[in-house]
């Protein structure tokens, strides 16, 4: 049962990833990325990480990708222009991908003490997860959250700088216009 589900959703995941590369319209690519992320969530669930699965759907598929599609819609990005590409890219590119993938794979295979993950080894409850997160992994967890906070502040600062260059009395004037037109 677990194996069948794994094969189905791993297939979805790969198909989505390949479709992401092949599609020429940005919104189709964005939607294939959603398929990839949702099927990854199912794979997490099969490994017993239920909280991670839900977080994957809520955060990645539900929030981040909405912003992606949002940008595509707002900019009204058209079709990607097909170029033949340089010959060097083809000659070097494909072997380079193979080399990098094989290096990564061999490192993972040879690494010691990684342990294995079975498809039906029971479910890690959210309580256990949070206990680990708030005791053993407290420092990395907090450092990550500070990192995200810095990123948010940076985004706000950048957005404000663009905004500040506009004339300051913009808002009262529009209000005045509205009442005048009535």
């Amino acid at each position, binding site marked *: *049962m677990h194996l069948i589900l794994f094969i189905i959703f791993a297939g979805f995941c790969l198909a989505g990833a390949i479709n992401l590369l092949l599609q020429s319209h940005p*919104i189709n690519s964005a*939607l294939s990325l*959603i398929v990839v992320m*949702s099927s990854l969530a199912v794979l997490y669930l099969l490994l017993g990480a*239920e*909280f991670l*699965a*839900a*977080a994957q*759907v*809520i955060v990645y*598929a*539900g*929030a981040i990708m*909405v*912003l992606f*599609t*949002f940008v595509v*819609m*707002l900019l009204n990005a058209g079709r990607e222009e097909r170029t033949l590409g340089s010959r060097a890219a083809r000659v070097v590119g494909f072997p380079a991908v193979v080399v990098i993938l094989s290096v990564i794979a061999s490192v993972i295979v040879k690494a010691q003490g990684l342990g294995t993950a079975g498809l039906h080894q029971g*479910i890690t*409850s*959210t*309580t256990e997860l949070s206990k680990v997160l708030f005791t053993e992994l407290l420092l990395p967890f907090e450092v990550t959250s500070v990192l995200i906070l810095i990123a948010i502040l940076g985004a706000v600062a950048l957005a404000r700088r663009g905004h500040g260059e506009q004339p300051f009395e913009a808002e009262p004037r529009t209000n005045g216009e509205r009442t005048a037109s009535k």
Partner: protein
Amino acid sequence: MTILQFFLWSLLKVAVVTVVMLLGVAYTVLLERKLVGRIQNRYGPNRVGPFGLLQPLVDGAKSFLKEDVIPDGVYKPLYLLAPILSLGCALISIAVVPFGEPSVGPKGMPLFQISDVNIGLLVILAVTSIGVYGIALAGWSSNNKYSLLGSLRSSAQMISYELALGMSLVGVVMRAGTFNLRLIVEQQATKGIATWNIFGGLQFVAFFIYLIAAFAETNRSPFDLVEAESELVAGYHIEYSSMKFAMFFMAEYGSMIMVGCVATLMFLGGWTSPFGDLIPAPQNILVHAFVPIFWFVFKVFCFLFLYVWVRGTLPRFRYDQLMGFGWKYLMPLAMLNILATSIWLAYRS
């Protein structure tokens, strides 16, 4: 229990729940039309059947029989996908909702819940967050400026209010210590209304945040800027006709019911009676099974009634007011609620 039995039971439950849910959607529409009619001092539909009770069925038949127009300029794959996505997401999350006593059922199989998941609440939130795509894609693929404006408004609104919505539920989750909806209800069940999260759990602030965020999340008045007819004609579903339009319509009412179910489970004690132990549990097995369902449906009905009441009474917000309210007031309030709840829990333990 073998796999085959499990499969058949689940199929049966899914079929029954889907039919009941769709009927619920149809009659919520009628409830709204009748009630808004009374609020505006007119009758509402009263010609088809006694008191207009057959109106939803006739409306359904009408939308099936109308001509299905697909405009030339639309981007067809997404144009067709959008209503399916919308309706699917609205109907699917009922699968984790427990609407009756879990102990009733043959061979340890819960009869009144399709599946009892540890992360039930998160599943509902996840499915809701996927539901945004239905509206966003509908607006974009229609190739119409009003649709696009409507869907952009809606996506921004839903993402913003999803945060407040999720955070308002954190207090309840902290009190219960679990995401499992059945356990959350059972934790509130001990003394009836006095132990419901909204009163005994001191989560009334969270309840009001949830209420406001839920109105925005389902794009209902006073936050229905998505289809503000005076500005946007009809918003994201202008270019849709016939059954595809009806699917969006059903999705809206389906998500209203869903939001009502979540409010009932999280704040109003789910299927438990408000009188707690004051009324002894009935001995008859049938009564014992169906009284909880009555309470559940009654609470959801009250929530829907409130929805319609608000729609009949309040004017629409302006868009910048909506966004400012969500981010500047609801979010900080929800965070304060989490803080206060955790301090209270730490003090008590």
